[in-house]
């Protein structure tokens, strides 16, 4: 079983902590879903940071700090160093954004930052695309987890490139992979796990639902279903019908 730098998760679901209608709703979403990982960020201290820190610590889950909003390797590396001290974890969700509209990663800055951070003892979760060459460079840099996008961040489109994601999954059988970004519905999460991905990370799909707590539970159920299905060896697909009821013994009427 693939793990996340030695950590196995009781449920393959990671939740963001942003965009909820209130902190209480966010806490309830974590409780209801039992999601074992929360993504967090660092921003300029304006008074609210201390209370938020106390709250996320109180969730009792693994914290995965991100470098969201960083557009260069240098920015991302400095942010990662600050996050490691602040959150007391070597985990870092490495984002180096390359385009303001699509929020797709800058592959060159991503590899540069991943190399520096892996060499510095970080356990890097790079937000990447389904590009296999980029994936290979990240693995060479020392990443043992990859976070390919399903679709652009916050789009809710699901898994945009099934062929690409399937190829990526098959190409790196030993690397844990988390589908990060673009999920909109629990069925997207189930599909990702059925395909052999090891977890999903979502934020907007839960936080901006009318009922974020119920949606978080729906995603948790979908993740359980998808993971169980993947472990159960799904049947192969056929082009033609095959009757499931035996033909032998049918009455001559």
């Amino acid at each position, binding site marked *: 079983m693939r793990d996340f730098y030695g950590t196995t998760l009781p449920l393959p679901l990671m939740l963001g*902590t942003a965009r909820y209608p209130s902190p209480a709703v966010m806490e309830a979403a974590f409780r209801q879903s039992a999601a074992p990982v929360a993504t967090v*960020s660092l921003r300029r201290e304006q008074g609210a940071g201390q209370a938020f820190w106390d709250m996320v610590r109180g969730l009792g889950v693994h914290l995965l700090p991100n470098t*969201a909003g960083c557009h260069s390797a240098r920015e991302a590396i400095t942010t990662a160093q600050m996050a490691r001290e602040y959150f007391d974890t070597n985990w870092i969700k490495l984002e180096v954004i390359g385009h303001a509209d699509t929020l797709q990663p800058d592959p060159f800055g991503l590899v540069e930052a991943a190399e520096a951070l892996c060499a510095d003892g970080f356990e890097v979760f790079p937000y990447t695309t389904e590009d296999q060459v980029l994936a290979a460079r990240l693995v060479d840099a020392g990443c043992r987890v990859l976070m390919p996008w399903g679709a652009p961040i916050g789009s809710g489109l699901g898994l945009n490139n099934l062929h690409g994601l399937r190829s990526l999954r098959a190409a790196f059988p030993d690397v844990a992979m988390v589908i990060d970004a673009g999920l909109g519905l629990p069925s997207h999460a189930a599909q990702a796990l059925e395909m052999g991905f090891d977890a999903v990370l979502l934020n907007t799909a839960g936080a901006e639902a009318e009922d974020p707590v119920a949606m978080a539970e729906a995603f948790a159920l979908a993740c359980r279903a998808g993971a169980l299905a993947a472990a159960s060896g799904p049947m192969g697909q056929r082009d033609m019908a095959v009757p499931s009821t035996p033909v032998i013994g049918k009455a001559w009427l």
Partner: protein
Amino acid sequence: MKIEVNGETREITAAQLDAALAELGWGEAKVATALNGSFVPAGARSATTLSDGDRLEVLSAMQGG
């Protein structure tokens, strides 16, 4: 001296980073710091001397996805 703190110009008298944080009201706060774009670990703040025009970033936990 004048330094830039989280994007705003501030007048401070402290010469060391740890004292400057206290002067700015973050003496007891849990924060992470960067000076002129480079990370300054908490343990190095007392040995970090500030200069006029320095850019200081003082960060703390925030919601993230």
